[in-house]
């Protein structure tokens, strides 16, 4: 195994909760609560979990778009949390992010060319002329007509915008891309185009992806390994095959069984979870999933399960496997 590109260790991020007109801090949301993993060059780590479980927070913390509360993030053997702000610039050339909403992630006032050349401009690369050529090349690379360079974001469809977003992230030749639900807002027909593009790019540039999604089929399609989060905590992580063929955590099992399958003939035994996701500001004691877990015991509500490698490369945090 090659040297890991990214090593995240015990990453934590909590947000103060301010409430009402009082704007008083009434508590802390543990948005990300002790996440550790490593990521190799050219590898894709899928991250799944329900809304609010901390996926985006994790992604943004890795880039230091949000200051993590604690933990360490080693990228290329440098702990980026210890870097002074001005040195972040250098790191940021190698890590990029693509956002979920293709409508909100492009500045409506910039033309596509400006959007694509701004990373180069920021890092003072090339002359203006070269930048403009580079922007066109990027457009071509993501499957758009280079003649579109003069257009503005609103003149594009969602899928096209997402391609522009990806092109912008590519501009600096990063080693790692964090994809925060890049296809969630797209129609299936377009979604598949973008997924194909991502797969091609990865092969071409040896990119590592952290692919955040809540659509399991997409994650399964693109990932090498998958991390399942629940309420800011890791509940299971494994190679994609191992996870999907043999999900260990009851939450992962429920999640998988809940995905509707586009085949009217397949009638599955469905695990219907009771109740809603608990409020992350007030997480349950013990195993965070015990409130909805069909197999929970009294023990689960008291003791936090340990993160254990149950099989090779298959980790889970559940009392069932102790």
């Amino acid at each position, binding site marked *: 195994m090659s040297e890991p590109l990214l090593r995240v260790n015990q990453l934590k991020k909590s947000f103060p909760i301010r409430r009402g007109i009082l704007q008083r801090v009434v508590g802390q949301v543990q948005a990300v609560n002790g996440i550790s993993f490593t990521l190799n060059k050219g590898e894709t780590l899928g991250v799944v979990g329900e809304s609010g479980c901390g996926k985006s927070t994790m992604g943004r913390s890795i880039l230091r*778009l949000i200051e993590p509360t604690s933990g360490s993030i080693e990228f290329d053997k440098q702990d980026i949390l210890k870097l002074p702000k001005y040195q972040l610039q250098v790191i940021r050339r190698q*890590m990029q992010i693509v956002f979920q909403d293709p409508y*909100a992630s492009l*500045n409506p*006032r910039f033309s596509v060319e400006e959007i694509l050349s701004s990373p180069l401009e920021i*890092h003072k690369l090339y002359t203006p002329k070269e930048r403009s050529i580079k922007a066109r090349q990027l457009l071509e690379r993501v499957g758009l007509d280079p003649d579109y360079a003069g257009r503005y974001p*609103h003149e594009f469809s969602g899928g096209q915008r997402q391609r522009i*977003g990806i092109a912008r992230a590519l501009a600096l030749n990063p080693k790692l891309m964090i994809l925060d639900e890049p296809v969630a807002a797209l129609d299936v027909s377009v979604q598949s185009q973008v997924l194909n593009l991502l797969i091609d790019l990865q092969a071409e540039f040896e990119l590592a992806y952290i692919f955040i999604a809540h659509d399991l089929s997409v994650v399964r399609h693109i990932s090498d390994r998958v991390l399942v989060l629940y309420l800011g905590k890791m509940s299971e992580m494994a190679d994609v095959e191992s996870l999907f063929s043999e999900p260990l955590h009851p939450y992962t099992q429920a999640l998988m069984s809940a995905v509707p399958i586009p085949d009217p003939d397949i009638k599955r035994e469905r695990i219907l979870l009771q109740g809603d996701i608990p409020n992350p500001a007030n997480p349950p004691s013990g195993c965070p999933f015990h409130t909805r877990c069909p197999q929970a015991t009294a023990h689960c509500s008291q003791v936090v399960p340990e993160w254990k490698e149950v099989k090779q490369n298959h980790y889970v945090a559940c009392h069932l496997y102790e």
Partner: protein
Amino acid sequence: MIDVQPITSSVVIVPKAKPPLRKRAWKSFRTFPMIYIGSAIVLILFVFAVFSPWIAPHPYAKQFSDGITANGMPTSPNHKFIWGADALGRDVFSRVIYGSRVSLEVGILASVINLVIGVTLGLISGYFGGIVDTIIMRVTDTVLAFPFLIFNMALVAILSPSITNVFIAIGILGWGVMTRVVRGQVLSLKEFDYVQAERALGASNSRILFKVILPNVIGPVIVLSMLNVGLNILTEAGLSYLGIGIQPPTPSWGNMINEGLQAYQYAPWILWYPGIALLLSVLGFNLLGDGLRDILDPHNVTH
């Protein structure tokens, strides 16, 4: 169950032929009449201000002996003084024309001061947050809670009354609302993904502030500034009305109204015309501001 249906029409889009320019102009006028009327008024105002010496039939300060009657009454409108004369025998029409200069000058310059201070502080406060934000917002609160009139009266008394001091006074106390608006905009823009994307690319604060955020707050800022111009014109008139504004014989609609109020019972024209001129110009800027707001409103933009 479903039969094969006959095709009723193969033409899907049924656009009418592109209407002629005249009609399109009328159409856009119908959609945004406010802005057209507003700009027309403002344009006329500018013309009056710039070309006052050519438009006004008489010098504004000239006290005509036939402008007042033997017992000191202002001459009512006649062929020489089409809007009558004022209490000193000066031509009201010419003075109203020249008055546009003061109104525009004060209205616009004060708004520029409002704008510069308001936008700068709003940007800084909203973007950097924390203690800087707290301090700026406290100062803004202070400015907003400060009695405007008292400040102006005091300042003008200290600095001696002049056009410059009037717009400085209006300018340095009127930026509170602008700061708040800009700050609010920045706070929401800051969370936009495209701003985050810039940060992820390693952009510096100044680049984000000036290249990304500023252009996006410019819309509301322009609208507010237009409305501000109207407000500042009114304020100048108010100060002049209270006798702490523009010094005579320079005509300002405010001091003309003040003089007009003194003579309303026997020479109402001295009050009417500057009042109407003031009303129309403020209205012009208000219409323009409101119209711009309509146009800039994303709900109305059809891409």
